[in-house]
C-alpha cells in the first residue's frame, strides 16, 4: 500500500462521537511520528550508555558507574545479572541494532514515505517482541535482581511509547488485517481516546509499583 489507506477513521460513517480535538491532534501524522522519533532516540541514547557501561563492567566488575546511586538505584547490580545478557551479549546491543530502524521509519514517515502494509506488520511483530522483552527485564529487575537502573527505566518507558504509537498507527491505517469487527471496535476505541487512557493508567501503575516496592530506599 503506497498511499494511505482509506481506513475506517476516514470513512464518513455515522460515528456517534464527534471527533474530539484531542483525537484530531493524536491522529495527525506529525504527532504519531514525532512521538515515535523522540522515544526511539531516547531509547537509542539509553542503549548506548548501557552498552558502554557493559564494556566497562566487562573490564572491571566493580567499575564505579555514574548511576550506582544506592543499593536500589544501581546499574551495576542490574548489568552484572545474567538477565542483562540473555542472549550471551549485553541486551543493550539489541537497542543499538533495532532503535535506528525505528528512527528511520519515523523520519521517513515524517518525510511522507508510506511503507507497504507487510513492512508495517513486520515492524509491529518485531517491536512487540521487543516490548515483551523490555517488560520481562523490568519485572526481573524489580522482583528478582532487586535493583533499578535509570537507563533501563528510560528504555522501558520509551519502548512503551514506541509500541503504543506503532500499534496506534497500524490500527489507524488498518495495516494488521484484523477481522472487520475487531478493526471497527479498535478504531472506535482509539477515536474515543480510550487507548490513551489505557496508556496513562498503565504508566501510572508501573510508577506506583516502583514507589511501593522501592519508595523507602528512594526517598528515605
Amino acid at each position, binding site marked *: 500500500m503506497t498511499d494511505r489507506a482509506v481506513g475506517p477513521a476516514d470513512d464518513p460513517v455515522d460515528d456517534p462521537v464527534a471527533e474530539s480535538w484531542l483525537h484530531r491532534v493524536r491522529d495527525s501524522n506529525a504527532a504519531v511520528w514525532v512521538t515515535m522519533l523522540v522515544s526511539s532516540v531516547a531509547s537509542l541514547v539509553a542503549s548506548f550508555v548501557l552498552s558502554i557501561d557493559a564494556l566497562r563492567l566487562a573490564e572491571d566488575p566493580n567499575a564505579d558507574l555514574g548511576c550506582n546511586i544506592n543499593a536500589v538505584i544501581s546499574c551495576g547490580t542490574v548489568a552484572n545479572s545474567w538477565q542483562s545478557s540473555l542472549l550471551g551479549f549485553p541486551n543493550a546491543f539489541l537497542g543499538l541494532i533495532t532503535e535506528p530502524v525505528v528512527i528511520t521509519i519515523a523520519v521517513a514517515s515524517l518525510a511522507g514515505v508510506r511503507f507497504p502494509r507487510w513492512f508495517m506488520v513486520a515492524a509491529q511483530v518485531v517491536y512487540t517482541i521487543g516490548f515483551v522483552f523490555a517488560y520481562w527485564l523490568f519485572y526481573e529487575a524489580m522482583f528478582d535482581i532487586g535493583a533499578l537502573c535509570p537507563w533501563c527505566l528510560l528504555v522501558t518507558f520509551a519502548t512503551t511509547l514506541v509500541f503504543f504509537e506503532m500499534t496506534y498507527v497500524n490500527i489507524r491505517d488498518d495495516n494488521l488485517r484484523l477481522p472487520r469487527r475487531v478493526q471497527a471496535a479498535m478504531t472506535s476505541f482509539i477515536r474515543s481516546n480510550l487507548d490513551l487512557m489505557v496508556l496513562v493508567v498503565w504508566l501510572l501503575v508501573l510508577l506506583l509499583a516502583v514507589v*511501593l516496592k522501592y519508595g523507602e530506599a528512594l*526517598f528515605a
Partner: protein
Amino acid sequence: MSKQGRARTQEMRKAQQEAAARQARNRRIVTVVGAVVIVGLLVAIVWAVVAATRGGDDKAPPASGKVVVPANGNASGAVPVGEPNAPVTVEIYYDYMCPACGAFEAANGGELDRLLEDGTARIELRPISFLDEQSSGTEYSTRAANAFATVADGAPDSAWDFHAALYAHQPKEGSKGLSDDEIASIAKDAGVPADVVDRFGDRTFVGWVGSVTQKAFDSGIQGTPTVKIDGEVFTGDVYSVGPLTQAIESAAGDQ
C-alpha cells in the same frame, strides 16, 4: 418512495440514533471510570511517596559512618576465634549473602570446627558487605555483619556458632535476606545472650563493616570467599572437604 418505505427509513434512523446515544453514554461512563482510576492512582502514588519519606525517619539509626571497632575484633576487619596461640592462622573473607561462601561453609564448617577445637588453627573471620545490593534494598550483608560484630563485641564465645548458624539459614541471593527478627532469633538459638541480641538494632558496627569492606578490596581481595593460610591466599578447592584441611595441617606440620 412509498409511505411504508419512508416509515421504515425513519424507524431505522431512530434505531440508529438510539444505538448511537447508547454508545455515547457507555463511552462517557468508561471515560469517567478511567478518570477516577487515574486520580486514584495519582493519590496512591503521592501517598506511597509520603509514607516512604516518613517511614525513613523512624527507621533504625543510619550508618553514621563512624567506625566503632568491636572488642575482640580489629580495625582491619578481623574477628579472631579459637586458640590465640594456635600454630596456623586461617583468614576467611566472606559476605553473609554470598552463595559461594555458603557452599564453602557447608563443605568446610565441620573441619574448621575440629581444627579450632584441637588447637591446630585460629580463624580470623572477616565479614564484608559488598553484596548489599543483592538483598532487594534491605542491605542484608551489612545487617548480618553488624549482628556478627555485635556478638564478637559482647559475646565472643558465641561468635563462631552464630557465624555458622547464619550460614545454616542463609537466604537466597537477591531475596530480601533474613529480617532483623529472624537474625535475632538465630542468634538466641546459637546461645547469644539476650542483652547482646538487643544491641543488633543499634547498628553500632555498621561503620566498621563498611570500612573493613573497603579495606579488604584495597588489600587486593577479589571476591568471596577468600581464604588465607598464614597470610597466603589458598588457591585450592574450597568447596569440597579435604584440600583446605590438608593445607592447614601441612602448614601446622611445618611449624
